[in-house]
């Protein structure tokens, strides 16, 4: 089946560019220029993924996000501008899967979209299924991690942290989400734990911890486990 992507973006030139980029990859492209159009399209039929601009003429993209999340777990990639980090985090914490910042290159957009489609599938997979991301192999059942075939001893917290990121490989994961998943809901403000454990994890997994290639920092938003094709 050819996946249908709904592009919700008010700027016609940008919509045209995205349409051409997605069309070139063989996706079906549905378009909506306003919040109203977007919601009526979703009411008719849910696409396989949504690209959502946060600034719409008749409301915020966040409202569209809420409407979609009430009925579907369809992957949503936010299109936002620089300086809107707060909105990005808000969108990610309200259920968006990832974001791209304008201006972006076509390759970046496609990579984000692929990662979103893939990790939606990963979430659907059983929790204890083996995962392979680039040089990493994760066995949730044994709670073991192999880096280029060699086992790396991780503490339980380090393992949980890596596992949460691995299940969303290629996508940015917010501080809040990581803290909630690994430490629990009452620790969502304590980003310092995250910094400390991320540093330890890098020391064990990165070739050069001072030049991270796997665990990428996204300032003000969160962390991303780099997936090889993203």
């Amino acid at each position: 089946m050819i996946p249908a992507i709904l592009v919700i973006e008010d700027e016609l030139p940008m919509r045209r560019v995205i349409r051409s980029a997605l069309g070139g990859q063989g996706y079906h492209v549905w378009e909506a220029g306003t919040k109203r159009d977007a919601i009526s399209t979703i009411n008719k039929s849910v696409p396989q993924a949504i690209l959502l601009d946060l600034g719409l003429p008749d409301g915020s993209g966040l409202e569209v996000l809420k409407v979609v999340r009430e009925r579907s777990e369809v992957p949503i990639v936010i299109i936002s501008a620089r300086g809107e980090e707060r909105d990005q985090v808000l969108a990610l914490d309200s259920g968006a899967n990832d974001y791209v910042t304008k201006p972006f290159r076509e390759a970046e957009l496609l990579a984000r979209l692929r990662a979103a489609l893939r990790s939606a599938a990963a979430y659907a997979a059983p929790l204890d299924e083996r995962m392979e991301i680039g040089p990493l192999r994760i066995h949730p059942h044994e709670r073991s991690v192999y880096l280029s075939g060699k086992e790396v001893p991780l503490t339980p917290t380090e393992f949980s942290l890596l596992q949460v990121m691995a299940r969303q490989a290629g996508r940015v994961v917010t501080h809040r989400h990581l803290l909630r998943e690994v430490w629990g809901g009452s620790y969502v403000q304590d980003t310092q734990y995250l910094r400390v454990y991320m540093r330890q994890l890098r020391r064990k997994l990165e070739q050069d911890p001072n030049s991270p290639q796997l665990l990428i920092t996204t300032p003000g938003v969160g962390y991303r486990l780099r997936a090889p094709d993203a």
Partner: protein
Amino acid sequence: MSNARPPGERVTSRLRAAKAGASAERVGFVWGALTNVVTTTIAFWVAPHAQLAHMMIIHLLGAVLISTRYGMAVSTFTAVTGALAFDYFCIPPVFAFAMPDPRNVLSFAGMLLVALLVCWLNQGVRQQRAAARASEERTQALCQLSLDLSQVASAEELFVRAQCHLRELFGDQAELCLTKGEPPIDPDFTTQAIVDHGHPLGYIRVTKDGVAKRGDRGLLLVASADRIADALKLLQLGDAARRAEVATEVERNRNALLSAVSHDMKTPLASIMTAGSSLLSSTWQKDAPTRELLETIVQESERMNGLITNLLSATRLESGGVVLNKELEALDDLVFGVLSRLSGRLSDREVDVDIPADLPMVSVDAVLIDQLLVNLLENALRYTPSGSAIEIRGFAETDAVTVEVCDHGPGIPAAERGRVFEKFYRGQAAKHNDGGTGLGLTICRAVVQAHDGKIVIHGRSGGGTKVRFSLPSGAPAPLAAAPSERRPTA
């Protein structure tokens, strides 16, 4: 403002004023004498039917009447001549000054004393009334002056109005001078300085007669000078406030315009860049020149986006419209993040990073600190010879965390080190077309200041620049406080 009248006329005017007083007094003496003639006639006429006391009352009445209108001299004259006439015409023996009856001596003395006493009391009342009237006039004049001067819009208008008031109060020769300088010395004039907290603003010159006319020993003159000083000060304060207001308004408008323009420019630019990159990555066959052109489109739109982003950040930060989204951050994490993002452009550079892992975390807005680091590294890349090394050092101080970005470029002359932080200022060495805008360091300073930190530029002994910024440090690294290992919930 100079005095146009010849000195001779000044003297005649003084004489005229003196003459006016003297003639009024002369009339008073005539009236006094006339009153005495009338009272004596009446007394003499009623004498056969009246007693001495009645005639005495008639004489007293005349003296009291005169004393209500005229001064002490006329009153005394009237009282004494009236008493003498009473003695001569009324006290027996009539038509003689002699007083053989001692009771009549008592009557005469009593009458004289009462007349003088009443004259003296009346004089006091008259003086008080005059003083009250003068004081009221003075108050009214000052109120009018203050009110008038409070409505002026310029120093010229203030001068004209004040001068007008002064001439009304002190005569046509009164003059006002609102420049610093010594007034000419003239014995006929009184000078009153206009000062504000010991700082001279000018002076008022009025004739001594003008002051005397007010009859208040110069009180009105001093008070007028005070009011003019107040009005001048208010005018100056108002000017300064207006200027500051206009400057703020201009700056606000400029920032709003820059912000709106740069935001609107970003949208089409984003489409251009994505479209260019689409063409570049499409499967369609491209020859080398086409590829190069497409790459130029993408790269240049990326560069332009960077410039606009800087402009937008600078105006937003400067207008104070940025709310910090602070979180505890590890600086090395941010530094390495920036380095890996700039890795393409840093490929021919040796970047030496020395940040201890136990550096305290800082509570900062990661996006802004990221931008600060990017700007500092881009400067180092832009203004130093390719291939030269860059060092980044981090260390903890008592209550701050400091980061230094050092390069081996030509350095910034000491005289320019403060100015390079100004908006759109570009160093002497940076004048050529290097793609800079003069905003990078402005943003750096605004970011650091928004975090209550400090940023300075130092020279290095071996040449090159060292930019050092400090941020107030938060809590110490809380590894020990982290909750113990838990079973994953994911």
